[in-house]
């Protein structure tokens, strides 16, 4: 059981966030589109468990709905990365050493060479701030990660006997990639996906913090921090609560990612013992 402790701890934390986000669709303590200036800047109390912000909105409700934004942006960014990166990686592995491999991997290197944060800020600043552009900006930099990881793993699979058998039986490279290689990458992709997911949450928080993430009235943790920043000195809970939400979510996902890798990758587990 001890072996899985980080997996369990991580899964618990992530689940809390997920439940809070899912639950917010059905019910939140207060309507967050309704501002109430006279109720502003309350510290945590019986009516508002986590206090109220500078517009008098309930922070607990904001955090719950904000979880939705963070998770959705990060998840879709991972989706973009996987959806485009994995096929590219598989294609590169299938055409190993050939022109297509070279083109894909060089393009990969090129994207890696761009300073991701600067480009994300550039994209969102130039084409308008908003959740959609944030997803694209974060997602683009997930593509080479997934392409590289899946190519690396696929290359070693191509040497395996069961693949050779499939080739002998006359299956096309495309079919082999889809039917035999891809299913064997699932574990790896889950682990990498979890890591990119947590990085995506941090990136979204950063973009929202500089005002380039989801736009109001959609709440987002990063923007809550940005709004709070001038009030930290007299209302520290405004910064501490969204900050903790980000930290706990990222922590949960990272622990879960590490735990999954240990649980799913027998080689690593052995070397740890």
């Amino acid at each position, binding site marked *: 059981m001890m072996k899985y402790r980080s997996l369990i701890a991580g899964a618990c934390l992530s689940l809390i966030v997920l439940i809070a986000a899912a639950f917010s669709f059905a019910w939140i303590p207060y309507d967050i589109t309704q501002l109430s200036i006279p109720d502003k800047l309350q510290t945590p109390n019986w009516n508002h468990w986590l206090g109220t912000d500078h517009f008098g909105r309930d922070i607990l409700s904001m955090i719950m709905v904000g979880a939705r934004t963070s998770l959705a942006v990060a998840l879709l960014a991972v989706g973009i990365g996987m959806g485009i990166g994995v096929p590219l990686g598989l294609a590169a592995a299938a055409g*190993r*050493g050939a022109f297509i491999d070279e083109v894909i*991997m*060089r393009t990969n*290197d*090129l994207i*890696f*060479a*761009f*300073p991701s*944060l*600067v*480009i994300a*800020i*550039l*994209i969102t*600043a*130039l*084409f308008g701030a908003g959740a959609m552009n944030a997803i694209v900006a974060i997602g683009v930099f997930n593509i080479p990660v997934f392409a590289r990881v899946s190519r690396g793993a696929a*290359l070693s699979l191509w040497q395996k006997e069961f693949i050779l058998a499939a080739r002998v039986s006359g299956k096309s490279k495309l079919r082999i990639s889809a039917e035999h290689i891809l299913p064997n990458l699932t574990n790896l992709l889950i682990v990498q996906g979890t890591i990119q997911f*947590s990085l995506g949450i*941090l990136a979204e*928080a*950063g973009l929202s*913090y*500089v005002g380039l993430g989801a736009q109001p009235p959609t709440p987002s943790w990063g923007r809550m*921090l940005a709004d709070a*920043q001038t009030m*930290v*000195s007299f209302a*520290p809970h405004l*910064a501490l609560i969204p*900050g903790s939400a*980000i*930290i*706990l*979510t*990222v*922590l949960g996902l*990272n*622990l879960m990612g*590490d735990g999954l890798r240990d649980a799913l990758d027998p080689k690593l587990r052995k*070397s*740890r013992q």
Partner: protein
Amino acid sequence: MLQYAFKRALSLCLSLCLASVVIFAVVEIAPGDPASFMLGINAQPDTIAALRAELGLDQGKFVRYLEWTGGMLRGDFGTSYTYRSPITDMVVERMWVSLPLALYALALSTLIAFPVGLYAASKRGAPSDFAVMGVTQLGIAIPNFWFAMILVVIFAIKLRWFSAGGFAGWDDGLFIGLKSLTLPAISLALPQASILSRVMRSALIETLSEDYIRTARAKGVSRTAVLWRHALRNAMIPVLTIIGLQFSFLMAGAIIIEQVFFLPGLGRLVFQAITQRDLIVVESVVMLLVFAVISVNFFIDLTYAAVDPRLRHGS
């Protein structure tokens, strides 16, 4: 080897050309005109046209692309639209903040990560290892701008040990300059140190399980001695790779931290240039950053290839 180097150099040039096209295209199709931004809401159309002509914006995009890239080949990055000063000078000036900041953060992160990683590896599996690794997990999860906010409140506003931001310059001595970079460097170093400690620890554990280490242990060399004498040296390769990656990240990744501490660094130059539509500055600085990363990768590849001949053929 020569053939390999030639091939890689060719691909380097191709990458740079491609990068310049991508950067130029992305920045140029963006809405927003630098001339109307500078002249504000009372400007008359003919004034804007006059300024556009003065800035050379009335030329075609293709001509401007050629002028920009041609200038860069000669080492001239152009003239900023808003500041009207040579971009090369501006970049060099900002480098005096960004480069020391990146090095400072890197030094801090390495200084923290080495003992932490060593300690955790030597206590592998023990509660103290678990505790240390838990802390590093937390360090990775903390957004650095949030950490920076907290540092400012505690050390600048409440305790007043450090100034809240700004850069004192190097003219008054190394200490004054470093002091003003301390809080930013700490906020940048925290997640980096956490990552590096973890890499350090697992690299050490990996090498400790190698056969020759086991042999050394069997011969009666103490665990600590093995760790110091053998494992550490072999664990350096992944650790140095990560340090290299972190350095290039820190050069450009300080953009938000520079904002929080209002440091006149490269990141803030880009950020300001974006909002002011000083397109040529955005293009040139991003190009410079890309160039730095690509050429560092190029030399790393060459070094690896020189060391390991297998790498010259295929992947």
